[in-house]
C-alpha cells in the first residue's frame, strides 16, 4: 500500500531524514516510535504530500506521489500536531466543509454522526475556538476520517485526550482497520502502540533502526526493543 524507498529530507544543511525504506501493506496498523526530533513528523508530512522529499521515492496504491498526487490525496486522512480546524466555525460547519472538499456524500449526516461518535454532540453548534485542548483534538480526529480514508496518518493522536476519548479513538482505528484501512501512527505512548498496532517501527536520528511485529499486545516487548535501540540517548 505504502512503499517508501531511500527517502531523504534536508532542511538547509541539516539532514532530517537519512534514507528511509518502509513497506506497509494494506490493512496494517503501524506505530512509529522514536525520540524527540527523530524526524517522525517530517516523515508523515512527506507521506501526506505536504512537503516534498529531497530525494527518494514515495509510492502509494502503486502510484507515485510526485505524479499522481491528486489521486492519492483523496485516500489519505492526515492528523498533524495542529488541529486544521477553523476556529470560528462550529464542529458541524468544519466537518461539512471538509467533507464537501473530499466529495463525501450525505455530508451532514456523516458529520453529525462523527461528532456524536467522538462524544461532543452537545457542542455541535459551538465555535471551536472555545473548546478545551482535548475537545479540539476529538474534532480534529473526526476531521481526519470524514472521508473514510484508505490511508490514515496520525501524529500523536492521543495528545490531550482523556481516558474515555482514548478508548473511542482506539475503537475508531480498529474499526477502520477491519474495513481495510492502513494506518501509520506516530506516538510516544507505548501502551497505546502495543494495544492497537500490529507492527512497530522505530526511527532514530532520521534513520529506521527497528521494525518488528507486536504479538499479544505485549508492551514489554516494545519497551525492551525501544530501550535497546535508544541506549545512551537521553
Amino acid at each position: 500500500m505504502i512503499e517508501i524507498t531511500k527517502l531523504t529530507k534536508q532542511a538547509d544543511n541539516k539532514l532530517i531524514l537519512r534514507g528511509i525504506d518502509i513497506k506497509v501493506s494494506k490493512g496494517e496498523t503501524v506505530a512509529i516510535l522514536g525520540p524527540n526530533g527523530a524526524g517522525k513528523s517530517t516523515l508523515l508530512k512527506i507521506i501526506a504530500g505536504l512537503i516534498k522529499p529531497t530525494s527518494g521515492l514515495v509510492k502509494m496504491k502503486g502510484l507515485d506521489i510526485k505524479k499522481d498526487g491528486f489521486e492519492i490525496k483523496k485516500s489519505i486522512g492526515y492528523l498533524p500536531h495542529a488541529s486544521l480546524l477553523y476556529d470560528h466555525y462550529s464542529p458541524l460547519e468544519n466537518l461539512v466543509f471538509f467533507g464537501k472538499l473530499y466529495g463525501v456524500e450525505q455530508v451532514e449526516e456523516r458529520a453529525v454522526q462523527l461528532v456524536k461518535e467522538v462524544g461532543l454532540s452537545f457542542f455541535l453548534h459551538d465555535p471551536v475556538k472555545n473548546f478545551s485542548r482535548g475537545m479540539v483534538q476529538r474534532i480534529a480526529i473526526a476531521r481526519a476520517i470524514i472521508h473514510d480514508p484508505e490511508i490514515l496518518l496520525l501524529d500523536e493522536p492521543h495528545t490531550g485526550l482523556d481516558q474515555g476519548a482514548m478508548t473511542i479513538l482506539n475503537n475508531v482505528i480498529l474499526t477502520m482497520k477491519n474495513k481495510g484501512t492502513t494506518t501509520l501512527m506516530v506516538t510516544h505512548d507505548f501502551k497505546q502502540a502495543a494495544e492497537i498496532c500490529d507492527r512497530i517501527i522505530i526511527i532514530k536520528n532520521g534513520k529506521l533502526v527497528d521494525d518488528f511485529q507486536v504479538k499479544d499486545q505485549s508492551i514489554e516487548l516494545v519497551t525492551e526493543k525501544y530501550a535497546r535501540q535508544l541506549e545512551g540517548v537521553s
Partner: protein
Amino acid sequence: MNLVKSALLLAKKDLFSEWKTKQVLVTQIIFASLVIVVFSFAFDPSNNMTKAVIPGIIWVIIVFAGILGLNRSIVSEQRNDTMYALLVAPMEPAGIYLGKFIANFTMIMIVETIAIPFLFLLFDFNMAGSIPYFILIIFVGSFGFVSIGTFLAALAGNSKSSEMLLPLLLFPIASPVLIGVTQATRIVLSDMSKLSSALAWTQMVTSYDVIFFVISLFLIDYVLEV
C-alpha cells in the same frame, strides 16, 4: 469541472464566514472612510487643486482597504494550519487561488459601491463624465488588483509578518494597473472628449489583468508548496 467546484466551495466558505461576522467588510469600509478623512486634513480639500487628485484618492483607498482584506484572506488560513488542510485535500492549488480570488473580488466590489459615493459626497464632486465607463474601469482595475493581490498575499503568507511584506510586493507589481486605471478614471470623470485615450488605458490594463491572472493560475503551485 473539479477545479471550479472546489474553488466555489472555498469562496462560499469564506464569504459565509464573512456573512456571519461582517467583520472584514465593515472594517474595510470604515478604514476607507478614515483614509478619506486623514487625506482631507493632510491635503486641504477646499483647495481646488485637490479635486484633480480625486481619481488618485479613489485608487488609494481601494488599494489600502483592499490590502487589509487580501492579507486577511490568507492569514485566516494560518491559524491552526488550516492551509495545510486545504493542501492535503484533493484540491489543486489553482483551486485555492481561484476560491480566494472570488471571495476577495466580491468583497472589494461591495466596499467600492459604498466608499466611492461617500467620497464623492465628502469632496463635493460633480460627475462630469460617464458613469457606465467609470464602473467598467473600476471593475477592470479591481479585477487586476485583486488577482495580483491574492497571488502575492499567498506568497507573503509564507512570511511570519505577512501583513508587512504584502504592501512591499504588491505596490510595485500592481503599479501598471494602478497607473493605468488612475489615468482612465481621471479622463472619464472629467473630460469625456479624451475618451479614446481612456479606452486605450483600459485595454492596456485589461490585457495586463488577463496575463497576470493566467500566470498566477500557473505559478500558484510553486507558491503554495510547503
